[in-house]
């Protein structure tokens, strides 16, 4: 079960290639010269304080925000706008309140003009994997916050994207649900391997989930440190008690403190 290919120093052909990306808002420099290569099926977290520009970077990858300089390409094609190879999970579940959970999961299929009937089965499988298939016919408001976010993860996966972008997806949840969701996410990811870019401001969450963690400093945001997390997979919550895990957490915390000291 343990797959050692979690971290390669120089991936042969990166799925996502970010080169010297800058973002300026007028005079304000939000992101300075960020470069990053992400290999296929790699789980990479971008860790940084709130408002440091890590979400901006993610939205540039999603093609929703234009970069000021540099290059972003997915599978060797430059990103110029939203792309079907990408699935996004936002901080809020952003489900459409008038659609049932199943119809919400199938929403991207409709927008992409793919045959709905063909994807219905897949939607049910995803919901089953997220353990909310019993709620397929319910409206979002009948679900708890954690269940809504699970549905939104299913929605992001429905069209089988190569890259899953997650923008602080669990930060609106309470601490207990949050830990549970981390475990669930890893389980889903284990079964449904994707390249994941996960933005978070939680050190433990980043260390628990990732193959690799990038620490971003405050504005202008730039990558301060890169740390490979070489903990065996599949991981469960007990790993958070281990010495190895806490060693990584310590290193990440020091990196963040160093970036604050600047």
């Amino acid at each position, binding site marked *: 079960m343990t797959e050692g290919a979690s971290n390669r120093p120089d991936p042969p052909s990166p799925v996502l290639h970010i080169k010297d990306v800058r973002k300026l808002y007028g005079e304000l420099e939000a992101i300075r010269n960020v470069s990053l290569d992400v290999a296929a099926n790699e789980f990479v977290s971008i860790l940084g304080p709130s408002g440091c520009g890590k979400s901006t970077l993610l939205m540039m990858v999603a093609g929703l925000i234009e970069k000021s300089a540099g290059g972003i390409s997915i599978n060797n094609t430059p990103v110029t706008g939203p792309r079907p190879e990408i699935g996004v999970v*936002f901080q*809020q579940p952003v489900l*459409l*309140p008038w659609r049932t959970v199943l119809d919400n999961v199938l929403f991207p299929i409709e927008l992409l003009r793919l045959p709905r009937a063909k994807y219905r089965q897949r939607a049910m499988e995803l919901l089953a994997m997220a353990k909310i298939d019993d709620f397929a016919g319910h409206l979002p408001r009948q679900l708890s916050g954690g269940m809504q976010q699970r549905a939104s993860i299913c929605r992001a996966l429905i069209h089988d994207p190569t890259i899953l972008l997650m923008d602080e997806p669990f930060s609106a949840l309470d601490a207990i649900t949050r830990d549970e969701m981390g475990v669930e996410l890893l389980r889903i990811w284990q079964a449904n391997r994707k390249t994941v870019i996960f933005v978070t401001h939680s050190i433990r969450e980043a260390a628990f989930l990732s193959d690799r963690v990038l620490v971003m400093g405050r504005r202008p945001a730039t990558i301060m440190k890169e740390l490979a997390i070489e903990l065996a997979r599949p991981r469960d919550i007990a790993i958070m008690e281990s010495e190895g895990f806490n060693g990584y957490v310590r290193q990440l915390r020091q990196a963040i403190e160093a970036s604050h000291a600047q």
Partner: protein
Amino acid sequence: MLNNVRKRVVDLALPAGISLALLAGWEAAVREGGVRSIILPSPSLIIATVIERRDLLLTHLWPSLYLTILGFALSVVGGILVAVLITYSSFLRRGFYPIIVVSQVIPKISIAPLFIVWFGTGMMSSLLLAFLIAFFPMTINSALGFQSIDEDIHRMARTFMGSHWQIFWKVRMPHALPYIFSGMKISITLAIIGVIVSEFVASQEGIGYLIKLAGGLLDTPLMMAAITVLSISGLFLYGLIVLAERRSVYWQSSSDISGSSGG
């Protein structure tokens, strides 16, 4: 569940009971207090008048209702169209929307005599006044509905390659629906007011004309009968909209479900 049913029964019975008590008090005051029916007819006399003169009342009710519904329908279509234009054109939004909002200050029924001058004493004036009054709340509510979608929802739809057209029909339109219905509920009452006022000013038919005529003849029971018939019709039209709203905006029913978490 049982508690809910009981609550609903009380919610219905309480205002109904108070209304009946008020009517009974009114009836008793008129009968025992010797109030003349030219000043205040008793509820029973009003009901009797409604039944007795139903042909006259209906003759005048139909044109008013017809114009109300037509004016209302035009205001709904026009209001939604203008709201869409305002939503998608920043020129219109920035140039015209403030004018529309500020023009709300004009008491529009004061324009009624002007409309008579422009469009004559016929149905056209009534129709246009009803439309004009009902149009503004329709536009403003719909525009609010189209524009108030969450930025995140918009982003979500865009990441999944949604076109403007798809986002309009699958996101903005359903999102705006509750706003459109609140606009309709305001507009239908205003459309009635528009028609009646216009008939007050100058008209040869309609329930507004009948009320004014009966007033001139000091036929208070007929006036009250006309007002009653008009109110019931208004209530009926309003009720139709509420019914349609409950069917269309099913995801916002007020029945509270446990475990709903704040976002």
